[in-house]
């Protein structure tokens, strides 16, 4: 580049060659060309360069670039392949999540715990529960079965409330339910003592049934260790109804104190009442405080029913504290049947969804593969 000319001078030269200057600019530039030979020389060289560029041969295309319809359509079809692939992948992922989710739910759910109650006799169950109550750290998976296991005792004892029991036949029903109502964080000593007394009563009741000491009702037999699966089936129906209750995990925060008072009074503290019933077997019933605000909602709902059960054994004293909250057994059975049918319906619904997702995943995957092969 000649240093005596500025970039603007070369822009003028270039624009002059391309006839891009106005008339006034052109006249002024031509005056400079006449006055400056060096500028005229630059103009000639730039003009030669421009001519060389413009004389470059027009290249011919080495081939024809026709567009064929088939590749164009195949390309548009090929765009759909990833869409079907993504649909198949998403359906597969949802299906896997559903399968694993349902498997985990069923493993952690109460249904898996039910066979333990069926296979082991009641005293052994009580022993397990007593050991559980003494544990310092209680996980939610431990708490949920504790309350759920109480359901059969609650329901099986309820028929005795519908049929008034006379003094002689007022055989105390298995009282394992009271142990389960007791929150796990109760004082270990008192809890174990109460459970031991409860288990002793239960064993005695079962012995009486076996020895023909009295007419055993079906509800009574259900609480005894029996190889039949009636209690198990009934328990499963109840468990499916209780399962969604999330408030069961709050039980560790509540405390229940057992005070051996001779009468059951509607005090605000749970009392350990020794009821002077005609039954020679003295049963220690634990009536949780219904007003204890720290007790979870499920336990609060269960507490009055426990009192109702004790009312069947000692109507004269327990009726005062029960508050008249007896739950009819027929209603419980109806609810259990209804919850069982709901559980089955949910299972069928889940199965239908899983099958649909599997079909969608397979079909979408096959379509994606076919499209890719078709586009070739």
């Amino acid at each position: 580049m000649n240093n005596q000319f500025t970039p603007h001078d070369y822009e003028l030269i270039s624009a002059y060659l391309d006839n891009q200057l106005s008339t006034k600019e052109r006249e002024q530039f031509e005056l400079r060309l006449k006055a400056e030979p060096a500028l005229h020389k630059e103009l000639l060289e730039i003009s030669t360069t421009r001519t060389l560029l413009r004389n470059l041969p027009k290249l011919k295309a080495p081939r024809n670039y026709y567009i064929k319809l088939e590749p164009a359509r195949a390309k548009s079809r090929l765009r759909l392949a990833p869409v079907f692939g993504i649909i198949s992948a998403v359906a597969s992922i949802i299906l896997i999540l559903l399968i694993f989710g349902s498997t985990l739910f069923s493993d952690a759910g109460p249904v898996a715990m039910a066979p333990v109650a069926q296979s082991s006799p009641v005293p052994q169950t009580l022993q397990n529960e007593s050991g559980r109550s003494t544990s310092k750290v209680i996980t939610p998976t431990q708490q949920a079965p504790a309350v759920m296991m109480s359901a059969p005792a609650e329901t099986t004892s309820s028929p005795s409330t519908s049929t008034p029991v006379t003094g002689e036949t007022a055989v105390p029903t298995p009282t394992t339910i009271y142990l389960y109502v007791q929150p796990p964080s109760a004082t270990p000593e008192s809890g174990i003592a109460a459970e031991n007394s409860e288990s002793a009563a239960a064993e005695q009741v079962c012995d009486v049934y076996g020895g023909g000491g009295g007419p055993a009702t079906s509800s009574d037999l259900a609480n005894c260790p029996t190889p039949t699966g009636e209690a198990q089936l009934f328990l499963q129906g109840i468990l499916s109804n209780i399962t969604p209750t999330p408030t069961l995990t709050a039980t560790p925060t509540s405390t229940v104190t057992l005070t051996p008072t001779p009468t059951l009074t509607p005090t605000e503290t749970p009392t350990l009442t020794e009821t002077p019933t005609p039954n020679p077997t003295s049963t220690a019933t634990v009536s949780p405080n219904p007003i204890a605000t720290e007790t979870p909602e499920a336990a609060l709902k269960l507490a009055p029913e426990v009192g109702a059960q004790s009312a069947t054994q000692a109507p004269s004293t327990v009726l005062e504290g029960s508050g008249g909250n007896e739950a009819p057994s027929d209603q419980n059975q109806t609810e259990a049947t209804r919850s069982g049918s709901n559980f089955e319906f949910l299972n069928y619904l889940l199965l239908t969804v899983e099958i649909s997702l599997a079909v969608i995943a397979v079909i979408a995957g096959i379509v994606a593969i076919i499209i890719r092969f078709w586009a070739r």
Partner: protein
Amino acid sequence: VDEIALIQAAKAGDIDSFNRLVLAYQDMVYSHAYRMIGEQDSADDATQNTFISAYNHLKSFRGGSFKAWLLRIVTNACYDELRRRKRRPTVPLEPLDDSGEEVESASWMEDPADPPETRVERKELQKAIQHCLDNLPDDFRLAVVMVDVQGMDYMEAADTMGKPIGTIKSRLARARLRLRDCLNTFAELLPSGFRLE
């Protein structure tokens, strides 16, 4: 046949009409791609991609100069190819002579109908010009190819490049100046009437 009618027919799905447009512009597109890239295979790919892209986006053509629209597409394709080559630089393969040495001249591609001397001189000059073009910055090269090789005026070049006319003027002047300086090194290749000194 009217170009506008062919474009409308191609927009309606008539692929034969579009192929007639391809036939009319493929030399121009390929020449532009070759001058921008400086390599045959890459220019061939850029030309093919240009027409495929033009066909797929034909509905976005709102009128005006179809040539400028095609040049805009091929320019983008050339920029893509140049960026790719900068990321992964390659050495073009040259043919070997009888002694096994690489033939640096491109005369092996020349039409054998021309006399050998003329063919060699012409090809050497074209190669020198292309060499100087390749050494220009991409934006400068695009301006000089648009105006001097494709014969577009400043307005068309500005419209195609999407730049103001002042930018085109400046880039074109600097590109010509650099080309002049570059071609001075190939003075022996220039015809007698085109000697710069």
